């Protein structure tokens, strides 16, 4: 039987872990503390993998010798988030490393242990490991997308076979 656990494996993700990024083009604007990756961008951190067409990384530090610290990742264009316990797709994603929140919006589809859930917005809280989908299609900081018209959440769950 497939354990339908809503507990995400990303809970153990250390936001301080090194972030590896691969892309066709990278533009690092040190004065703006920002790096822009474009062209099938692949981000890997621990067991999280995040692919998108375009990702902007905002970071701090780096020169003061204390080493850089990524504050936030903004991904857009066919975002695909993959973790050992689930995979999700959407149009925009924001990974806030300080609050350890991954927000995915815009026609979100979450695939977790065989269950497929669609909605306007998905929030994965790395502190609790809970993945919450709701119908609102408004991003944490005001990014609105069209979502499905009714603003409702639909899902298809696979029921484990009862052999009794």
């Amino acid at each position, binding site marked *: 039987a497939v354990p339908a656990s809503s507990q995400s494996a990303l809970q153990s993700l250390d936001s*301080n872990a090194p972030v590896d990024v*691969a892309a*066709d083009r990278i*533009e690092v604007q*040190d004065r703006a503390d920002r*790096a822009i990756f474009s062209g099938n961008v692949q981000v890997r951190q621990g067991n999280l993998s995040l692919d998108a067409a375009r990702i902007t990384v905002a970071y701090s*530090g780096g020169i003061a010798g204390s080493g*850089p610290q990524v504050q936030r990742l903004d991904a857009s264009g066919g975002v695909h988030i993959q973790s050992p316990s689930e995979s999700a797709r959407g149009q925009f994603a924001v990974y806030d490393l300080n609050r350890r929140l991954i927000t995915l919006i815009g026609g979100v589809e979450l695939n977790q242990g065989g269950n497929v859930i669609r909605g306007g917005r998905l929030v994965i809280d790395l502190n609790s490991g809970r993945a919450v989908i709701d119908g609102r299609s408004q991003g944490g900081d005001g990014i609105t997308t069209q979502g499905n018209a009714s603003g409702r959440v639909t899902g298809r769950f696979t029921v484990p076979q009862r052999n009794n």
Partner: protein
Amino acid sequence: MSEAARKKLGERQAWATPGGRHDRVVGFLQIALPSAVGVLAAFLAMAPLQKSNELSFLLSRDNVEIAGERLRVEAARYSGTDATGRPFQLRAASAVQRSSTTPFVELAELAAQLQLEDGPATITANRGRYNLDEEAVRINGPLAFRAADGYRLDTSNVFVSLHDREMRSAGDVTGRIPLGAFSAQRMRVDIPTRTIYLEGRARLRIEQSQGR
């Protein structure tokens, strides 16, 4: 007068009598010396016309020690101004210009100093080839860029234009910036704005500090 005195006087009188030894010597010299003068005068008059004693020689090139390069400078210093008119300076432990046809100078232990908006920045490398006309250095080997506020860029085998204040990689490039270690097939760095453009299988590994 004593016997010896008389004898001595006699010898000196005999030496001085006409037709004696002294007269014969003087007589011979009266003829020999003027003729010697004549012969010498004749020889000197004829000397420049004779072919045989041409005293010229050809400095043969093969057994003279020839310097390999056209110009070797120890502790060289080149200075110029970049596109915005700010001065830059390029120092090197040694600079060798192979030939006068090409405006290239091979530098060793070079250090370039640029004046940027927020202070001086230095580029140091072991070996490079400085193009005098373009005011640009092709660095082979590692290169270290340091800015006034501690910004560091390390890479290798790049082309540094001191005039345009820009770096370009010839091909595959790897390096390190404050944000992390990068690699790509092509790189361009705009030095004043510190913007790094990486293209072609670009990779960046961000090692975060644990301060969160």
